[in-house]
């Protein structure tokens, strides 16, 4: 049986500062080596200063993954030399001397499959290496320490996955969960990274490192299973080794470095005293945790009668569920959900588009209300939404400017209806044997009015006219 285990590294991108100093946790788009200070550069004499908020966020992640959370946590030093590591050791957590990581064992359901979590630990991200030059002889390694010290949560799973599909489902659930907890933005480049362990029946465990995104993680696991199966079918033994994911060629490559033989000489980080997280604090954190995705989904279904599939889509993305929660009322909830899932999702499908969108919950509320009050047809609403996302102007103003308001003047409407009836004698005839055909005629009226005709009024008038 194929066994896959994951080590997910997730940056706590929603924090203000780094794990041990006051430099920005958001190191992106800053001039190289400018987001640094004596502490995160590991200068002689400096000491780590623990960011309490990071411990809280990491604890919340552990709680959301149903992990045990200990009374006291400790930090350890992982000792190894690497140019991206300013101190040549990494401050991390460990459970070998008792449960002292932010999270102990836990589990999460992926469909019907239970994935066990081994532990959740908080640690510092190293700097970033930039390689320049093509051949290995002329290669130059540059280091950008802006990232050094960024709070990183490592989530380690048991080898409970059996195929890449389960891995993908888990990653989807996990990234929704992390986003919903407001701890991390999984869409940021490098915010989510992973290592994976893969073994097939009768083979040794192979570790794949350096997987830079969730997207590639599934690919890497898939590649590795195929590689191992191909070896196995040719009766070539699968050796236990560490392989690196080459994200350009999309293959795994054996690491010739003796990384797996490194002895990290873990020992307690004396500069950070044990940190107590008493039951009161844990209860407080638990009570302040954002509503879980499944709870949201159930609420949407039971309180507003939103269909299961729509509720599912809406609840799993924090951006949309936040919008929904802020704009709906008991009466317009279904309409708001409908606008978000059928129209809005297509309009703001990338991170950039979301950031640039000028749509507010107020807009959504107005749109839904206008539709329900018959002031706006759904298709006009869609046009208005498209404009509002770009302009941010009020709905009423947008309607005027684009002339989108419903045509509800009976005389005017009747003129158009009569025109349609004269143009479509066949359809008019058919309505007598098949009453559904009337919808075709409504559609024609809509075409002529560019969707502005008030649908219910149109239907009523049409019915009268064809009788």
């Amino acid at each position, binding site marked *: 049986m194929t066994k896959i285990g994951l080590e997910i590294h997730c940056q706590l991108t929603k924090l203000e500062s780094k794990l041990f100093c006051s430099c920005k946790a958001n190191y992106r788009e800053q001039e190289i080596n400018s987001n640094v200070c004596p502490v995160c550069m590991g200068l*002689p004499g400096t000491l780590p200063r623990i960011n309490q908020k990071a411990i809280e966020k990491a604890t919340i992640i552990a709680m959301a993954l149903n992990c045990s959370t200990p009374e006291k946590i400790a930090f350890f030093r992982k000792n190894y030399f690497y*140019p991206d590591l300013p101190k040549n*050791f990494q401050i991390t957590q460990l459970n070998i001397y008792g449960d002292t990581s932010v999270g102990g064992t836990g589990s999460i359901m992926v469909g019907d499959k239970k994935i066990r979590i081994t532990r959740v630990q908080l640690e510092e991200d190293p700097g970033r290496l930039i390689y320049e030059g093509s051949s290995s002889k002329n290669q130059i390694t540059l280091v950008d320490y802006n990232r050094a010290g960024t709070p990183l949560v490592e989530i380690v799973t048991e080898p409970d996955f059996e195929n890449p599909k389960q891995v993908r489902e888990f990653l989807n659930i996990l990234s929704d969960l992390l986003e919903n907890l407001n701890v991390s933005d999984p869409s940021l480049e490098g915010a989510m990274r992973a290592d994976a362990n893969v073994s097939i029946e009768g083979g040794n465990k192979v570790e794949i490192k350096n997987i830079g995104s969730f997207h590639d993680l599934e690919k890497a696991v898939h590649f590795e299973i195929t590689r191992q199966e191909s070896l196995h079918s040719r009766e070539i033994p699968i050796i236990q080794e560490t392989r690196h994911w080459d994200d350009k060629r999309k293959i795994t490559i054996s690491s010739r470095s003796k990384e797996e033989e490194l002895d990290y000489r873990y020992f307690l980080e004396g500069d950070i005293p044990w940190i107590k997280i008493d039951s009161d604090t844990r209860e407080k954190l638990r009570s302040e945790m954002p509503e879980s995705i499944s709870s949201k989904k159930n609420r949407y279904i039971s309180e507003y009668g939103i269909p299961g599939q729509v509720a599912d889509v809406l609840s799993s993305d924090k951006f949309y569920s936040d919008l929904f929660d802020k704009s709906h009322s008991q009466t317009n909830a279904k309409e708001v959900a409908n606008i978000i899932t059928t129209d809005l999702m297509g309009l703001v499908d990338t991170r950039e588009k979301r950031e640039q969108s000028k749509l507010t919950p107020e807009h959504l509320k107005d749109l839904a209300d206008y539709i329900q009050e018959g002031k706006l047809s759904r298709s006009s609403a869609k046009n208005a939404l498209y404009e509002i996302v770009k302009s941010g102007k009020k709905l009423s103003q947008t309607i005027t400017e684009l002339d989108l308001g419903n045509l509800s003047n009976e005389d005017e409407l009747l003129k158009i209806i009569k025109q349609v009836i004269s143009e479509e004698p066949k359809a008019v005839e058919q309505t007598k044997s098949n009453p559904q055909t009337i919808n075709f005629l409504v559609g024609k009226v809509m075409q002529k009015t560019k969707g502005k005709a008030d649908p219910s009024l149109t239907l009523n008038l049409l019915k009268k006219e064809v009788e």
Partner: protein
Amino acid sequence: MNLKISALEYVEQVKNGDISAEDFVSSSIDRIKNVDDKLHAFLQVNSKAVEHAQQIDKKIKSGEKVGQCFGMPISIKDNICIKHSKTTCASKMLEKFTAPYDATVISKLKQEDAIFVGKANMDEFAMGLTTEFSAYGPSKNPWNTDYVPGGSSGGSAVSVSAFECIASLGSDTGGSVRNPASFCSVVGFKPTYGLISRFGLISYANSIEQIGPITRTVKDTAFLLNILSGLDSNDNTTIENGNQDYLADIDSGIEGKKIGIIQEMMGEGIDPSVLSATNDAVSKLEGLGAVCEKVSIDMVKYSVASYYTITATEAGSNLARYDNLRYGYEFPVEGFEFNSYISKARAKFGPEVIRRMILGGFVPSAGHAGKYFLKALKVKSKLTKEVKDAFKKFDYLIAPTVPVLPFKLGEKIDDPIALFLVDINTVMSNLSGIPSISVPFSISNGLPIGIQLLANHGEDKSLLQAAKALESTVNLPEVPI
């Protein structure tokens, strides 16, 4: 200008207008010029010290608020960072390292208008107890320049003992303040772990070391402790001390106090003159009304082994950052592969540092940690428990600071094991986190002997009272330089 005054006397005299900061500081600088060729207490002398003193005099004259130190000249061990000045840890590895920030103790002293006259010599990265392991040459004992001044804060103790400045800051990982204080006949204090911020102290073994003042009198130590102690947001290991005034009630005496004489620190190998000095100190304390009794702390016999295992492990990690990529000394990295570069760059460490780092790579390594490092931690926690138990019965403990007299330069440098044993009486306070102080007590054949008093965790104030009592019983000759 009389340089042979205490810190508190200096403050008094400047306040009264008897002397000016400028006169005193320039005399100190002259003194350094005159004697430091022989003593080598300093790695660098602050060329702006006199100018700084002039500014303080101006402040005094104009009636501006002046900090408690009134321009007092202080030397700083070269493992404590002063902004914009070179901080080498007496190592070639940090030959070109200029600190871009102030240690917390430095900020506090600056705020109180202290003047840093220079950076004091030390054993490289504070590893040693003779100052012979300085990469820039040893310091000499001002009582006899053929002899070692102790270490690792040797330069600090020498500078105070030889009247080159009034006080100094050293650091004490296993006795590095108390040992040279004892060898040079000055007061050396290792506070409760966490009482003084370590932010800006370059780590050797961070879980047990503390910055400590070296002064001429116990009261001067209390004065400096008032300035230096307290919580620091930059050091998460600092402890709350409720803004204690260590000078208040310092003359409380020790009548009725119980003192335990540590048997394991007066056993095999102790110099007879040190033994008799200790016995003499005990009778003098009894004369002041203290009740002294023998006490046994069994784990002392494993304490040095435990100490070297733990310090080597932490040093191996703390010193790993010196890969010369970001700071260090002149040695361009271009053209090297990372691992080959660092192995070449790190060859700049001196032999004692290399010895301890090799040890530090071995004792906590997979397959050996159980036999060495974890066992050392066990000894540490057992020792701490025994010490705690002893303080259920006693207010203080007493022992010689060092069981032997100062020895000659070069005498023990090639015998690391013999040197290690010189630590036996001092490492206990570091491993258990308790405060201890070395008080100058007598002179034997022209060589100083210090007596060490120890108190329970957090009892620093009470300890200084006992030390003051012991100090009041002695009358020592002046340093012959």
